[in-house]
């Protein structure tokens, strides 16, 4: 494959060399890009070598590729993302510039690609657009900042957790899951009551990722859950954190009247894995009748 890519590069770049300057590079980029963005089954084998050839062209190919970011075609967007990932940091400055483009497709794609590049030099540029009027851009930028993983962006992410648009809030919760920052715990617990599951699930993951600093607040929250669905998420987080302090509340829950809570508690106790946790599960299994709870307990036992 690498050999094929090198052959492509040599062939096309040498063809381009016969012409002069930017035009010749553009011709090579255009030709390779047609191949790189094809999803035609007859030309499948050309795709990856062409992407690699474009990647090898490096910074020289970036201006022409940036022009192509106007596309609204999903396959071309994906190809651009793949190629920019191969080019890497040399593409970052121009991509940051594109964030300010008037073309909405172009700027959103720039945010998406910058997230994939995970280069900290893009953080300042991305931060300029966290309050963008376009919720798709706000979400994309927050998501990119999360992937880059620079602490400087955390306050903006927490702010975005209160955004009026649930897709932005989802991006914020996902982004925060990349940080083990204890100051995020309380906002994330609040986010467990969000009306959209993307936020709730992502906040739960973020809290699980935070680890020990989240244990005490989660134990407290389990005592006075805000609503049923956040309660279920708290039970799951308790399992993920696998701290012995959760044993007592989880044993209570696995014997409670809510079959769904029992099921999640069974799963969580399985993750705790202690002798006491397993004993609680065995005791419950003897009397349990709900098929979901039974399946959860059996899954723990079988694993």
């Amino acid at each position, binding site marked *: 494959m690498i050999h094929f890519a090198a052959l492509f590069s040599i062939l096309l770049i040498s063809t381009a060399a016969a012409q002069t300057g930017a035009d010749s590079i553009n011709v090579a980029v255009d030709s390779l890009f*047609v*191949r790189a963005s*094809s*999803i*035609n*089954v*007859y*030309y499948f084998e*050309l795709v990856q070598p062409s992407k690699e050839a474009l990647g090898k062209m490096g910074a020289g190919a970036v201006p022409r590729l940036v022009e192509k970011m106007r596309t*609204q*075609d*999903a396959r071309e967007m994906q190809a651009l993302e793949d190629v920019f990932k191969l080019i890497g940091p040399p593409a970052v400055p121009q991509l940051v510039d594109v964030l300010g483009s008037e073309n*909405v497709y172009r700027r959103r794609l720039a945010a998406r690609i910058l997230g994939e590049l995970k280069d900290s030099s893009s953080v300042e540029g991305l931060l300029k657009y966290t309050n963008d009027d376009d919720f*798709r851009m706000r979400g994309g930028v927050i*998501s990119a900042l999360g992937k880059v993983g620079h602490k400087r962006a955390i306050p903006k992410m927490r702010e975005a957790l209160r955004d009026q648009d649930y*897709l932005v809030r*989802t991006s914020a919760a*996902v982004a925060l*899951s990349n940080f083990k920052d204890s100051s995020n715990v309380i906002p994330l617990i609040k986010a467990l009551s969000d*009306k*959209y*599951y*993307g936020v*709730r*699930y*992502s906040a739960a993951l973020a809290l699980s990722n935070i680890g020990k600093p989240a244990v005490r607040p989660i134990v407290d929250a389990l005592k006075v859950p805000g609503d*049923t*669905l956040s309660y*279920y*998420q708290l039970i*799951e987080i308790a399992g993920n954190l696998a701290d012995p302090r959760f044993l007592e509340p989880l044993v209570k829950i696995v014997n409670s009247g809510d079959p*769904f809570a029992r*099921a*999640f508690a069974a799963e969580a106790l399985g993750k705790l894995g202690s002798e006491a946790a397993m004993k609680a599960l065995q005791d419950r299994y003897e009397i349990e009748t709900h*098929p*979901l709870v*039974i*399946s959860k307990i059996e899954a723990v036992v079988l694993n």
Partner: protein
Amino acid sequence: MAGPALLGVDCMEPSFYNGRMKYLITALMFLILAPIGNSQTVAPAPFQALDSLQRAIDMSLSSLKMHRGDLTFRGDYLEEDPYRLPIVDTYMKEPLKIIDFADSVLTFERLTEFKIRSLLGNKSSEVKRAPNSKSAERDSRLFERADTLLGRDVSSLLKGLLYLARGVDPDNWPGFSGYSRFQRDSLVEGFTLLLEENVEDEFKTIYQLDSIAQYEDRWAERLVKLTENSRGRGKIVDEFISLLDSSLARPPMVPAKARNYSLITDYGDIVIGDTSANTYQGDFFIIIDPGGDDTYNLKFTGVGHQIYIIDLSGHDSYSFPKGRISPLFFGGSMIVDFKGDDCYTGGSYSLGAGLFGVSVLWDKAGNDRYYGDAFTQGAGCFGVGILRDDSGNDSYQAALFAQGFGFVDGVGILWDFAGNDTYIAGGRYKDILRYKDHYLSLSQGFAYGIRPKMSGGIGLLVDKAGNDAYISDIFGQGSSYWYGLGVLSDSAGNDQYVSFQYAQGAATHMTVGILFEAAGDDVYSAKGVSQGCGHDRAAGLLVDLDGNDSYNAYDLSQAAGSANGLGFLADIRGVDAYVVRSDQNTRGFGQPRRDYGSIGIFIDLSGRDGYAGGVGHDSTWWSDSKWGVGIDQ
């Protein structure tokens, strides 16, 4: 364009395969057995089945730590285009409500119940413009002398059709008056380009294909603006329905002295036939034929034509022009055939295909055969196409965009009331993006849009009775692509569904599709992305209310959510069999994408069901994937 490769069309010898005999025997059996059946277990009415489904949905959501509000998709993931139909946004927002819609269409008896005008939404140029008084006066004078000759029925029908024609006339439609000749030509060329496929594509180079794609993209860009004035064109369907409900509710009485009458009008020739076997060759405006085995060999040049045929009886053969450009573009047609085993052969854009206009084909009796290529047999684009067949064992064959197909700002309906029917779509245009050996169908209750520029329409295939067979390949059977609504609803009979991919309640890319089966022992077979599968913020649903059913798939099927989509499969009653190959992405499967989940909900509410391959067992619950759940009760 040649006919579909699958077809061996021979309209000269209509098939008599004991359909009537079967019907009589069935009716007799029903009369004998009805009292016994009534004294035994009464099957629950559909609403009861749906009530129990609602409860199961709530349970499944609780087990996913979700509520109904989580099952929602938006109309603004990208900038909304002007052609989004409100009903699409409604069902995107609350996709489970599509179940009620799919159920309700099975109870419809009259075209008015579809409320097509409201399906097309409010965003439109006003459509109805009565013919001006001069035209009305002229029309009235046209039949003045012939009233006595033609009789009340025919005279009234002709006047009604002429009135209709004036309303359909693109020159009378306010939306089109703003177009220059060049712009009209552009619309014709542009949409023909978007709706045509080429069997030679598989032999083109990668650069040729890219060039074609770029060319089509530029056209689409232009058409987005150009079609602004065409929105709501399909609403003229109300005039058609009104005429069908009045003058054509029963066969018109054609007096013997009216036979062989003819008249020249602005729109072409009006001809009244006789009871012998007539051949109508060429360009006509209205044909009323009282009987005989007739042959209609219609030919037109240019666009904007209208053709209205009322055939009262006989085994008839209809043939429509097969050119690249539809002569009915901007125009309209209505065919009402009251009796006989008929054969309809069209190329593309025929047999109930409304393209910037309205087209209705209503066959009221007989075992009929329908053959077409692309955009046919109930297809609509900036218009409405309806193919209704009231009885008989019918055969529908087409290649692409057919059998209840809705394109931009369009509604396509194929509505079959009775009989053991066969629906075949595909076999001509290869799906060269994905396979070297499979064909595009995009048919059988399928909606389609131009991603991301123009939202799709509404495609409905409704079959009310009979043991039916549905065969498609890639994209079909209650599915959709890009902000559309694809519905296949089948009421009764032991039906078979065969497809390969993106079918049987599948939705890909921000859209909604449902396959709804009310009764019968049904068989579903597909390879993947099927049987309740939503991909990319889309909802795909397969709901079967009753019967001992068999489901067979390979992967990403049977309630599979992909790329933040919703896959939903619910089977309410019966002893069912579920077979899958993959245990990784089937039967209540939700995968993560964009860092959060897709949702898969699998529900079987009763019966001792069998499971082979994959997850799930009878009388258990399972949630092997984080965002997926299976419930068998």
